[in-house]
């Protein structure tokens, strides 16, 4: 075989592969189209049957037990479950139970099926939120596949299965940031029921050498839940944290949690060496909105760091006497402090109100100063 023959043979092989690819493309197109159309039709049909069975328990529409293997049936169950409330959910749960859907999906989770099918089983169990699936979902919080673990935690959250809180928190530190953030959503969903376990986790694990990302996330969840009872304990921990990132997270959480007990400690952190801590303290004081912080935040407008000045101005806008301080700050010799005060006055609606008063001929000197300041001169030196 000479060179030309080899080249021609190669051409033949290449075009054969092209033809196979083209055939594959056509087949895939046809299969996709048919599968999607058929899936939509069956889902609509199942929705109709299930809806009748739920609304009229004596209805005798026949559902073939084999349909539990059908993705369209599972989608219909999920769709229906997400639109129901109260006793209807129990009726649907009864139907699901009769067809052994939970057992079947649990078996799929335990199988060696590829990721797609196992993930689908986890999603179905999570969406159905049936209490009987709780042990399976807890078991698969240790699954090798992160997305399956996420769905299991989500399912436990949906059914508000409080015994699962410790199981989820236990795994918090070992998880990747992605899984941890999804676990965090679940724990937020548990609300006040999760706070003491989270606080215990923070107490035990803070300032370990291997990094504090999980502890920071736990503190963040405490802030989002906003349960006031944990405030004193968090303040106590805040004074013990060595890692500035932990301090920042705790100060942030205290801003969300609110309450007068956090004000004095937070004012103290306005003098911290780390500007990020001062910045977060100013921000949190603004969230709490206690007038006790007025003087401290006024000093914050003169901070060496411009972020702290900006946060102090924004915080003052939420305080009862803060607006007056901000109007005074428009005369500050520091350009960033002036602009920060102007931004805060605009964001809190004071600029709009000043404009309205001017249009009605009722503008005060402070209004005119503010309106004039907004349009004067270049922005950046």
């Amino acid at each position, binding site marked *: 075989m000479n*060179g*030309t023959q080899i*080249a*021609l043979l*190669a*051409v033949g092989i*290449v*075009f054969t*592969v*092209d033809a196979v*690819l*083209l055939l*594959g*493309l056509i087949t*895939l*197109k046809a299969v*996709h*189209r048919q599968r999607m159309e058929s899936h939509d039709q069956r889902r609509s049909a199942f929705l109709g049957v299930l809806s009748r069975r739920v609304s009229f328990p004596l209805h005798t529409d026949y559902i073939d037990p084999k349909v539990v293997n059908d993705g369209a049936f599972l989608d219909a169950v999920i769709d229906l479950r997400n639109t129901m409330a109260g006793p209807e959910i129990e009726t649907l749960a009864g139907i699901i139970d009769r067809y052994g859907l939970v057992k079947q999906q649990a078996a799929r989770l335990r199988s060696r099926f590829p*990721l*797609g099918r196992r*993930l*689908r089983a986890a*999603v179905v169990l*999570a969406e159905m939120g049936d209490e009987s699936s709780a042990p399976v979902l807890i078991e698969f919080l240790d699954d090798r596949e992160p*997305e399956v673990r*996420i*769905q299991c935690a*989500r399912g436990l959250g949906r059914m508000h299965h409080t015994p699962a809180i410790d199981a989820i928190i236990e795994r918090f530190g070992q998880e*990747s*940031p*992605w899984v941890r*953030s*999804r676990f*965090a*959503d679940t724990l*937020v969903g548990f609300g006040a029921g999760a706070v003491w376990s989270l606080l215990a986790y923070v107490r035990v694990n803070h300032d370990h050498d291997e990094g504090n*990302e999980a502890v920071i*996330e736990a503190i963040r*969840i405490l802030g*989002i839940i906003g349960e006031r009872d944990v405030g004193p304990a968090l303040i106590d921990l805040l004074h013990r944290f060595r890692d500035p990132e932990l301090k920042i997270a705790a100060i942030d959480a205290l801003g969300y949690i609110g309450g007068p007990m956090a004000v004095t400690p937070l004012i103290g952190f306005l003098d911290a060496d780390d500007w990020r801590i001062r910045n977060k303290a100013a921000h949190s004081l603004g969230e709490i909105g206690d007038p006790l912080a007025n003087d401290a935040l006024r000093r914050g407008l003169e901070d060496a760091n*411009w972020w702290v*000045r*900006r946060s102090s101005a924004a915080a003052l806008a939420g305080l009862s006497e803060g607006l007056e301080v901000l109007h005074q700050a428009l005369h500050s010799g520091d350009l*960033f402090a*002036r*602009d*920060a005060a*102007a*931004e805060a006055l*605009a*964001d809190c609606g004071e*600029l*709009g109100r000043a*404009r309205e008063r001017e249009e009605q001929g009722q503008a005060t000197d402070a209004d005119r100063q503010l309106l004039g*300041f*907004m*349009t004067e001169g*270049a*922005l*950046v030196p």
Partner: protein
Amino acid sequence: MILDVLRWVGYGIITYFILMQLYLIFLGLMSAVAMRRTHHLNRFGRVGDMLSSQTSPPVSIVIPAYNEAMGIIESVRSMSIVGYPRFEIVVTNDGSTDETLQRLIDGFKLERVRIPYRPDIPTAPVRAIYRGRGSVDITVIDKENGGRADALNAGINAARYPYALCTDADVILDAKCLVSAMRRVVEDRQRTIAVGGNIRPLNGSKVELGHLIRSEVPKRLVPRMQVLEYVRTFLASRPAWSRMDALPLVSGAFGIWKRSAVIAVGGFTTGHMGEDMDLTMRLHRYHIDNKIPYRIVYEPSAVIWTEVPDTLRVLKRQRIRWHRGLMTAVRDFLPMTFNPKYGKVGMVTWAAMFLFEFLAPIIEFTGWFLIPLAFLLGALNVANLVAMLGLALGVGLMSSLLALLLDESFGYFNGPADTARLVVMAFIENLGLRQLTVAWRIRAIIGGKSTRTWGNMERKGVANLGLEG
């Protein structure tokens, strides 16, 4: 002797072309492996849970606008309803000479404000800053003209959040694109400094009030060819680079950047014709040089739709500009090429960019003359010539069909007629259009004043894109 040289040069050129196509096929196969997981997550996973999550990191959407009066309101409105829990929109009016600023002021009830704007990245002077009074969290930076990169830098300076989505005024964001892209950030907040998205041409699709109603492959050849190119690039190449942790480019039309990282390298380079590639590569270099752990990733399910050139004239300008950008980047990052210090970025990605992107038009253009000459002088016989050209065509077709197969498996955007049009395009693009793009790239290499300007994109505006003709 001369005939032997001609014959072997001819063989060399064809071999180079085949190697290039095989490299594309390899990337395609690797992309398929990389996308399988994304595919499962999209089908069965619940990435959308991030929508209701209070722990999702906030994002600033930065939009540079220069003479975008025609579609700026629709664009911003469509972006303002993208699915994500917390974001702000920062539009930079880059010294527009039309009514862009006034339309923004009227459309979003903007009022002039002063904010503590800090020029972390130096830009052309900022004239004024406006904030929206309505329901959209929008800030408009009005500055003197400085080009797209300068406008992006000003937007990044004004952004309040740690991540900035830098995009264009003529794009439509898919409802889930921000969630899908930010998912990659949440996966590893410490290391993720940039996330690229999947860009698809919008021409020919049905768009109403800035929303994509139905996607369609355009009937006109010029934009249709670009659909195929975009599929090849965004589905059969970028996922592979991302999987290798060596992505050379986060496209300018959709890139989520960690603000602090962009500021650390000085922002986008003004006046650069490939400022997106330049920034991506500078970020690689900065982090490797300083031994800072990082990752730059691509997310195929983060889809955005953009208007692509509709005529050969505009396409020519765009391609010349892109190749000039590539040339500048190849020059700037030459020390990284085949440099083991830069790991896969230097040894694989940038080496491939040099060999198969930068050199490709030169070698192919040379082949146009040398192969016929070799044939005319008898150095190649008919059978050899046909075999070589057939092989080149067949392998080229293979990479396109593989890309379309990936699109069908993971995209679901095309109806049967659309797929048929793209298959036909895969055959006919080799009969003139591809050669034309090579000629434009050669034009970019030759240079001259006309190749150093951005030129006018001549857009229809996102609201009018369904109207082909």
